[in-house]
């Protein structure tokens, strides 16, 4: 009985250490992402893991991203240096609910249509419309 008690105590202590380590990890990631990441200047769109296009964030634009034999659509809006998906034909509409992104490395992911929009820091913003 006494032995069980000490084991329980040891377990509880280790549990707390585990949670603390996980929380510290998450907070560290958060601090890194929120404070040490500069604002990006362009968004890179990939479809199915392949590059689709890159658009500069410095000018407003609206782009329709067609996927899945042109049956699926994600409407990407760039406005005031931020990018967001306005509407999408995917079932869950998670990408459309995502807040606007502008920090380097931030992304909006549409899993059903396999569309990823990522903010990047590019040096060649002189060719914003280049479809790669």
């Amino acid at each position, binding site marked *: 009985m006494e032995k069980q008690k000490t084991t329980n105590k040891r*377990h509880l202590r280790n549990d707390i250490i585990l949670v603390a380590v*996980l929380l510290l990890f*998450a907070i560290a*990631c958060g601090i890194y992402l929120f404070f040490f990441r500069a604002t990006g200047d362009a968004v890179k769109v990939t479809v199915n893991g392949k590059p689709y296009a890159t658009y500069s964030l410095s000018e407003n634009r609206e782009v329709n991203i067609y996927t899945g034999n042109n049956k699926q659509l994600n409407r990407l809006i760039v406005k005031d240096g931020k990018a967001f998906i306005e509407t999408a034909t995917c079932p869950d509409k998670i990408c459309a*609910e*995502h807040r606007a992104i502008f920090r380097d490395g931030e992304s909006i*992911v549409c*899993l059903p249509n396999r569309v990823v929009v*990522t903010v990047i820091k590019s040096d060649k913003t002189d060719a914003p419309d280049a479809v790669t």
Partner: protein
Amino acid sequence: MNNKIKTITFTGIFTALAIILAYVELLIPPLFPSLPGIKMGLPNIIIVFLLYRKDATSAIFVSLIRILLVTMLFSNAMAFLYSLAGAVLSLLIMILLRKLNLLSVVGVSIAGAVAHNIGQILMAMLLLDSSELGFYLIALVFSGIIAGVFVGLCGALLIKKFPSKLH
């Protein structure tokens, strides 16, 4: 022979329970609709229970059969890959921690829940060829801890009600 029948029966019963819990979870409206993947992970109650009151083999069987069947019933192939990646990593971590006997049931469940979420993120990185899912990871670590505590407490309660190992 008798033993074999017993194993099949046990696996069947627990798989059915896990599927029902997965279905119940689907009925609960998502807390954060903009963050998919954040859920309680109720079927993990069964997996944790099996790890403590049966063995690792049955936990693996129930988990994998559960995912296969739930996918066929309610979901699609993409979700299957995410679930599978999460389940495999989560099972590995939980079996290891159970063997090491360092944590309580709740601790094992927390580690399993967080591992499940990390497994899904890794699969997403692989499938979408995007390594920029870092923001998501933070949310999933937090939700994993909360879900893990809840599932762990349920599992611990169940384990207490069945004081001896199932044979």
